[in-house]
């Protein structure tokens, strides 16, 4: 079978920059930074008090959802964002997926780790009050009493795609991907393969994740990857590619990208705006706690993405970098791009948008891929908002101070996960 072209038929996003693409793009244009003091739980006692949290009340979006699902959304922010996103895009999704047979449609999502924040369990914990150490287990256990597909807490990762599969009859496959910061990037990549090689005609790819909860803060905080709050009144703690960067900003997001074959697009009468040209996907095989300082794994992923897409470095108009703002990632990322692009990198605008919306971990890939789509549609390049003193040689075009207007025909989006998973996507604007 001849490999199929893979188009992006539609996309939608919920993030701390706004609910829906339109609001998110407006936030990008106006240089809105979603960083603020955490209100969802009390961070006092920890060295971090800020995050890029969604402040919109999402519940009106999903009030018609199943009561069990609504209950689970209370405990699980990433489930809430996913369900809200589905309802936000419901009419369009049903229209897009109505043309293909159920066995020709699949769903693949990057999903973050399943923890139940301690403080959302506090009332339950209080009821069980004792000095025993197994209260968390007992609290969770006491909430799961019924025979149903949905637990109020601690669901299997499969539940996330399964819910969507049921709503949209996506019966070809339902795959959750668990590769942390590269999870939803890989979801798009493996969705691409599914269409390219005829496993499906339409794929709902994306992801959802939130690390704005007490357990995640303790976990990531102790690893030293979160930017410590230095000045309570000053926004801008996440500074990708800046000499003074000291960590990332916790974030959250959910996003969908509807991937479609040429045949399915024609059948649905859709004139797609983007073609996904290919991807590269590698492992570092270095240390689980840090990227390879020589950037070999990243460079192999970038090179593979270009080769598989049939694109030369000089054809790239913009790169949306992973740029976490951590000491470990940013320098190696630039090194890897320099290794592959050589001097051709000098003319290419580079930026990370994590300083605005935070690091959405398993949803970082879909959020930043969708932002790339927005930028390409609007001939727009966002600047590195908090960058003042860039690292690396002065030939890198790390966009600073102001956003730019520029036509982007070919764009790159990449994510390099904790644990050394490197995934790069190449996107082409068609219309």
């Amino acid at each position: 079978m001849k490999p199929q072209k893979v188009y992006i038929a539609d996309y939608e996003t919920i993030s701390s920059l706004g609910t829906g693409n339109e609001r998110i793009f407006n936030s990008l244009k106006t240089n809105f930074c979603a960083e603020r003091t955490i209100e969802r739980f009390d961070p006092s006692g920890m060295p971090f008090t800020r995050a890029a949290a969604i402040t919109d009340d999402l519940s009106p979006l999903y009030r018609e959802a199943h009561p069990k699902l609504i209950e689970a959304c209370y405990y699980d922010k990433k489930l809430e964002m996913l369900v809200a996103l589905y309802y936000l895009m419901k009419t369009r999704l049903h229209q897009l997926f109505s043309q293909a047979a159920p066995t020709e449609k699949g769903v693949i999502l990057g999903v973050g780790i399943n923890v139940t924040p301690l403080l959302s369990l506090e009332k339950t914990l209080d009821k069980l009050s004792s000095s025993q150490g197994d209260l968390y287990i007992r609290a969770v256990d006491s909430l799961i009493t019924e025979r149903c597909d949905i637990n109020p807490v601690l669901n299997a990762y499969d539940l996330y795609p399964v819910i969507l599969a049921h709503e949209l009859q996506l019966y070809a496959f339902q795959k959750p991907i668990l590769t942390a910061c590269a999870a939803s990037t890989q979801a798009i990549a493996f969705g691409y393969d599914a269409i390219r090689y005829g496993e499906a005609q339409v794929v709902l790819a994306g992801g959802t994740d939130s690390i704005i909860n007490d357990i995640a803060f303790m976990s990531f905080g102790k690893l030293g990857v979160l930017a410590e709050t230095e000045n309570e009144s000053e926004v801008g703690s996440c500074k990708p590619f800046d000499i003074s960067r000291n960590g990332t900003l916790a974030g959250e997001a959910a996003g969908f990208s509807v991937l479609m074959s040429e045949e399915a697009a024609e059948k649905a009468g859709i004139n797609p705006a983007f073609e996904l040209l290919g991807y590269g996907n590698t492992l570092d095989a270095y240390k689980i706690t840090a990227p390879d300082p020589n950037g070999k794994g990243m460079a192999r992923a970038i090179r593979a993405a270009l080769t598989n897409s049939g694109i030369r470095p000089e054809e790239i108009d913009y790169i949306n970098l992973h740029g976490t703002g951590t000491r470990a990632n940013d320098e190696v990322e630039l090194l890897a791009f320099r290794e592959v692009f050589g001097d051709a990198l000098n003319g290419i605008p580079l930026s990370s948008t994590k300083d605005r919306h935070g690091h959405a971990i398993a949803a970082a890939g879909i959020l930043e891929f969708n932002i790339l789509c927005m930028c390409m549609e609007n001939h727009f390049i966002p600047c590195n908002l908090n960058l003042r003193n860039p690292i690396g040689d002065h030939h890198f075009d790390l966009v600073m101070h102001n956003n730019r207007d520029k036509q982007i025909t070919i764009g790159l989006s990449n994510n390099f996960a904790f644990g050394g998973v490197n995934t790069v996507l190449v996107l082409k604007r068609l219309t």
Partner: protein
Amino acid sequence: MSRKAFITGYCLRAPGINSDTDLYETLVGGRFNPVFTSIEIAENYFTEVGLIDFGCEDRFLPKASLQKTMRPDVLASCICISELMEKYAITREEAESMPLFVANGVTLEPVWEENNAVHAAFYSENHPLHKAEKQAILYQSFPPLSALRTLTNATESFISQVSGLAGNNVTFGSTSLSGFYTLQEGVRRIKRGECKRVIVGGSFFAGIFSNLSFKNFAPDSRRRESTVAVYLLLESEEKRKERGNHGGYFVHEMKSLARVAPVDEKPNGQPYVEMVKHCQPGPVLYSGGLTGHSFQEESEVLQTTRLPQFSWFPFLGHLGAVSMLMNVITGISLLGCESAAMVNCLDRDPYGRESLAVISKEIE
């Protein structure tokens, strides 16, 4: 392009089974002594958990400092991969471009001890404390490397670190269907000619969190499950011939039925009704699901096929993400000692999604 994807070799760690020889002797000789422990999850709610033995030659063990940060299923995975690489002469150079597709189950189990510490702090004798004080105690008591043990891609990333495997990759989770997906991913890549060799496999960490994650499917049951790691080396036909290897086992057919029920309904009643239509003459290996009830249901349906059947469920219980892969390697072991030319490996996950992998013996 390769027409066939061969299963050249495998390694595993399961309760009472540390090698392919152990597996063969268990199946044929009936020698099987798994170790189980009983865990009380809540009042009158117990689970039996099968434990694995990490016994192996020292050279297959990761460094002691790494072992400390690994979950047991991750450690077992790393041992399996090291054994597999040595046995099948996978060089570091080859590993750099070799794909690795992993299925992983629930990964929160290691936070059990952490949670004890954290909650002891949370509800310490000074309780009720001011929230800031509680939070400070929580933060101080949280182990620094906890994230490594709970990381959802810890298996894949640790394997990569210790083995040098650095090609295309993914981690699917978390039910038994993910094991099917990893095998399918490897088979497809070989058939498309993207690679000559690929490692697929997965691990499952049995225990409290697995029970809690799946408790809604069987709230009243006393359950049994086992920690398991299974990894397979798949090869293209060309690669096999290149090594002068003939005969062997290949993936004849793979099918899945991922029709899901509405959220407020139980998964479809009768299991495998569609899947048995695709079964080939030969033994049927099936997973048995989560509980004794689901095992019974599956057994009854499969008895109507009149095909010989076997399940690990009565011995090891639920095997999570690794169920299908365990059936596949068991099938290979059976094909090695029986006259059958094919085995059928069946699985049904808690959402009622079914999958079938038919493994065939290549006649020289």
